[in-house]
């Protein structure tokens, strides 16, 4: 009991949230109609499904005294991985979305409105500043 018990419970909850987010993102990845909607699923996968459970695993590792001093290595590397994912996943999605939009590689099939296109036509926004 005590601190270790609480940390274990918290870490299991975080890993559970991660599993839920991964499954939801997987379903979304397969069911969403086009690329720009699938970006949404990718965000859930990266932040909810990867960042959260890795933090959870790091916390869990801190409680496992059988690992000895190397549990701090595990926890530290886990936090670094989580921060990298939190930093890089949105940037990667942004670069990909921009390239896909302007190269017209992804078809925008069920389309309600394309405000960016209208803005570019009006001359309010240039491609290089997006």
């Amino acid at each position, binding site marked *: 009991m005590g601190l270790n018990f609480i940390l274990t419970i918290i870490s299991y909850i975080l890993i559970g949230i991660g599993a839920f987010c991964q499954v939801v993102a997987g379903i979304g990845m397969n069911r969403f109609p086009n690329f720009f909607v699938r970006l949404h699923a990718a965000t859930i996968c990266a932040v909810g499904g990867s960042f959260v459970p890795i933090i959870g695993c790091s916390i869990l590792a801190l409680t496992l005294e059988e690992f000895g001093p190397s549990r701090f*290595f595990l926890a530290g590397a886990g936090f*670094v991985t989580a921060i*990298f994912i939190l*930093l*890089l996943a949105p*940037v990667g999605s*942004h*670069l990909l979305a*921009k390239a896909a939009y302007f190269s017209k590689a992804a078809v925008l099939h069920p389309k309600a409105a394309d405000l960016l296109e209208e803005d570019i036509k009006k001359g309010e926004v240039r491609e*290089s*500043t*997006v």
Partner: protein
Amino acid sequence: MSQLYELIPYIVMAVSALASTVAVYLAIVERDLIKAVLYSAIQSTFYALLFYLLMVPDIVLVYVPVAVGLLSAVFIFAIKKTEKYEEVAGIPKTASAIILVLVTVFTLIAGWLLIQSHAITFEIFPSADARALAKWFLNTTLASKEWWIRTFSAMSPEAVTAIVWDYRGLDTYFETSVMYLAIIGALAIARYFEIPKKEYKEESMGMSIVGKTATKILVPMIIVVAISIGLHGHLTPGGGFQGGVTAAVAVSLMIFIFSVYFAVRYFKIYTAILLRIIGLIGIALAATIAILIALATGYHGFIFQNQPKPITPLEVGLPYEIGGNLISGTLLIFNASEFLAVFMGFAILFLLLSVPEESIMEVIRGEIE
């Protein structure tokens, strides 16, 4: 149920192998070469998981940067510079069927021989007993600190790095020279390429501002991670090769996100070649330093000697620790040198790959006339 959960690593292994098979099949039959590269990236990711579950973190650390980070960049460069599609009409059907059968038979024989090499039992699953050589390596990699027991030890908790740079150091030396020959070959082909002298412009070159800002934060972090992987090679998974390829991806990211004109501010080609040579000299010196000391003092010494040997009356050899920190003798020097050499070698090749095609074609036209 709990028995099923013990099987999970093996289930994941099987699933990732099957998924990689599908990806490989699609990569080979695909006409669009970019899609083939993407399929091969899927295959690489699954192989990384497979290596991980086979409990070899050193290979994962070197394989992921190579297969996902560098090789896909090389292929994309090459496809951009050459053709995008493969012409598949007119592949002879009977000949390819015969080749398929021959290949299958050949691989069956090889696979059967491989199962035999599980040596002790003739089962598909490897036995619980390790080879005698493996046991010997594992027993001696970090032995007691008295020097007469240290004789056969590398004094490194990391058995893989110990084998790479101590037990089988001469192998690695010649393998490294094969790598340098390949790099020198590529340099010889690219001998007349020059990066055009253009100024880097913030607004017209490179990708969007978000990517640039993130990469500005990221590149120093990558270099730090790479140095940490490289110099801690004798303690944790990693080593010179792993750190070098990890750092090389930073160069390719800089080329893609900013531009080659930005990258040459920090990595000039001739400086990189100089640093690569310094790394190679470092390896050669660390390999021969024991024998040089021995020659100077009149005792015995060996090439690639790490810890003192019983035949040498003095403790000729580098210390295994400095101030209580384990440095494992020569392993630290080898890792640092190899890090520098691999990093700079691949940095040069990436800078040369990113030379614009127009400037090269001008040179070629000039030579023809």
